[in-house]
């Protein structure tokens, strides 16, 4: 097996497929059991310091912010983050000092809102190390390989670039076409947080709108914590089983947290809270501001409901629902600045 070239990026989250199979057999329950717990218990049980963490959704769309805040609240340390379409999620986890290693497909940016001061600063000062580079497609295919229990998946991208050089991929000659092809290794995150609109108490979950990478990621996860807008009766799930994106045996914990994606968007339910994200982007320009932000919104509140009250309560949530449903115009502090 001649390898034509290979990246120097650190191989994170990879396991020999046989070792992973044995782990699954010993650790993932196939039993149908009630998995409801508090987010505090879920984080305590499934997020050891040093773990490789990945977040479902799209960085600031359908993100388990309830999970993210709890990781910060419990002051988890030395986490490695899967920087897959990472936006607000990674920015505040890095800003909070929980994450000091990241593999990057996309991070340190806030899409239309510009760059992310906190996480950029962390990387540029060496506080957070970028251990490998890759692309969005490649990250998602690393999860596909993991879901399939394979060591790797071939791809036809990254070839010829520095992204490949700093990745953990290898290039071989494809024995069918004779052309060079990239092999990207499986990635099994130690723990994944995913926010869904609904699931039952066993973890059978439905997702409205795009699934993004969550079909593969849920199945690649060693531990999967679902936060959900609502826990519905099992019968509602079983009535339309083709709507189930994640069946129960991939799930380790189910936590009901209405608005659990705030300030990120939850498709069909609520829009980005641009006021709050804007506040973070403003405050996170300085280390003092970062500290002030977490003191106020994480350490200073007793739970997620308390936090929701603090960011504007019912009136704010009602407004975000209207914006999401195109019944009210969007406003944002970062827009005013540009105006």
């Amino acid at each position: 097996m001649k390898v034509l070239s290979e990246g120097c990026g650190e191989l994170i989250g990879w396991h020999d497929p046989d070792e992973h199979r044995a782990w699954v057999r010993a650790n993932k329950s196939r039993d149908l059991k009630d998995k409801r717990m508090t987010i505090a218990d879920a984080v305590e049980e499934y997020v050891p310091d040093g773990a490789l963490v990945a977040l479902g959704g799209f960085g600031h769309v359908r993100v388990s912010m309830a999970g993210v805040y709890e990781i910060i609240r419990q002051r988890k340390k030395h986490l490695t983050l899967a920087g897959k379409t990472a936006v607000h999620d990674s920015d505040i986890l890095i800003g909070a000092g929980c994450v000091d290693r990241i593999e990057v497909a996309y991070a340190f940016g806030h899409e239309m809102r510009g760059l992310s001061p906190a996480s950029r600063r962390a990387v540029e000062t060496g506080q957070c190390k970028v251990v490998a580079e890759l692309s969005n497609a490649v990250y998602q295919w690393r999860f596909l390989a993991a879901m399939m229990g394979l060591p790797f998946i071939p791809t036809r991208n990254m070839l010829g670039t520095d992204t490949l050089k700093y990745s953990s991929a290898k290039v071989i000659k494809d024995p069918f076409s004779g052309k060079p092809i990239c092999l990207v290794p499986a990635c099994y995150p130690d723990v994944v947080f995913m926010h869904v609109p609904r699931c039952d108490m066993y973890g059978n979950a439905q997702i409205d709108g795009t699934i993004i990478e969550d079909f593969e990621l849920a199945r690649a996860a060693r531990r999967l914590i679902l936060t959900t807008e609502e826990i519905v009766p099992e019968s509602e799930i079983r009535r339309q089983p083709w709507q189930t994106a994640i069946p129960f045996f991939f799930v380790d914990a189910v936590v009901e947290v209405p608005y659990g994606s705030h300030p990120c968007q939850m498709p069909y339910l609520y829009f980005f809270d641009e006021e709050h994200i804007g506040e973070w982007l403003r405050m996170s320009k300085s280390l003092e501001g970062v500290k002030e932000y977490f003191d106020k919104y994480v350490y200073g509140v007793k739970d997620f409901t308390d936090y929701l009250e603090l960011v504007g309560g019912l009136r704010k949530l009602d407004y975000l629902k209207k914006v999401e449903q195109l019944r009210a115009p969007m406003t944002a502090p970062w827009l005013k600045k540009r105006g």
Partner: protein
Amino acid sequence: MKADYTATELLATVASKVLEDGKSVFVGTGLPMIASMLAQRTHAPNLLIIFEAGGIGPRVPVLPISVGDSRTFHEAAAASTMHDVMSLSQAGYVDYGFLGAAMIDWYGNINTTVIGEHDHPKVRLPGSGGANDVGSFCWRTILLMRQEKRRFLKKVDFITTPGYLTGPGAREKAGLPAGAGPYRVITQLGLYDFDEATKRLKLLAVHPGVTIEQIQDNSEFEILIPDHVGTTEPPTPEERRLLREIDPTGMAIGK
């Protein structure tokens, strides 16, 4: 005479004109969305828009903030997965792809990862995101960027996304899909393509009022200048009106 349109409006309208009706385009955040939505509202009503988070053929009501935002699958043909859209791109279904760039070299290789050393960055940028995927898989990629001497470089610090790599045949030799690559570059100064023989950046048209000297002065490398250089069409009032309609808050197009 001061133009009655902004540079951003010009970029959006010039970019939209590159797109063809009945073809597909892989769209990123910001100007690419605006250009694609404008094309749908003008000459290309059946332009198929594809977003990396899984939105396929949406009727985008208003400029999304994110390529994963629910606006990207509003009344879509399908709200699918990244695996689905990246796969169909790799399989050759996507005609056009848009890319933003911090820096490029004369082969259209793009850096959006880092300025300085990778492990000791002077400036850390977001990385590939979907850019390497778009640049690898889409038949024709369109680069939208600001043109300055420190951005049009002889050598970029980091090739995040492939242009023509080291020249003719290099993409294919590396194993990338054959026959694809950068198609147009659009900056605040002009519109470029790539020379057939050398795969180097070549001026196609200047924007109204821009000189060849400005084009060259704002690049560290030599830009090929053909005998005939066109001038781009400025945005019409109707196009400008549509742009406001698409982006009412001015988040990408400006106030």
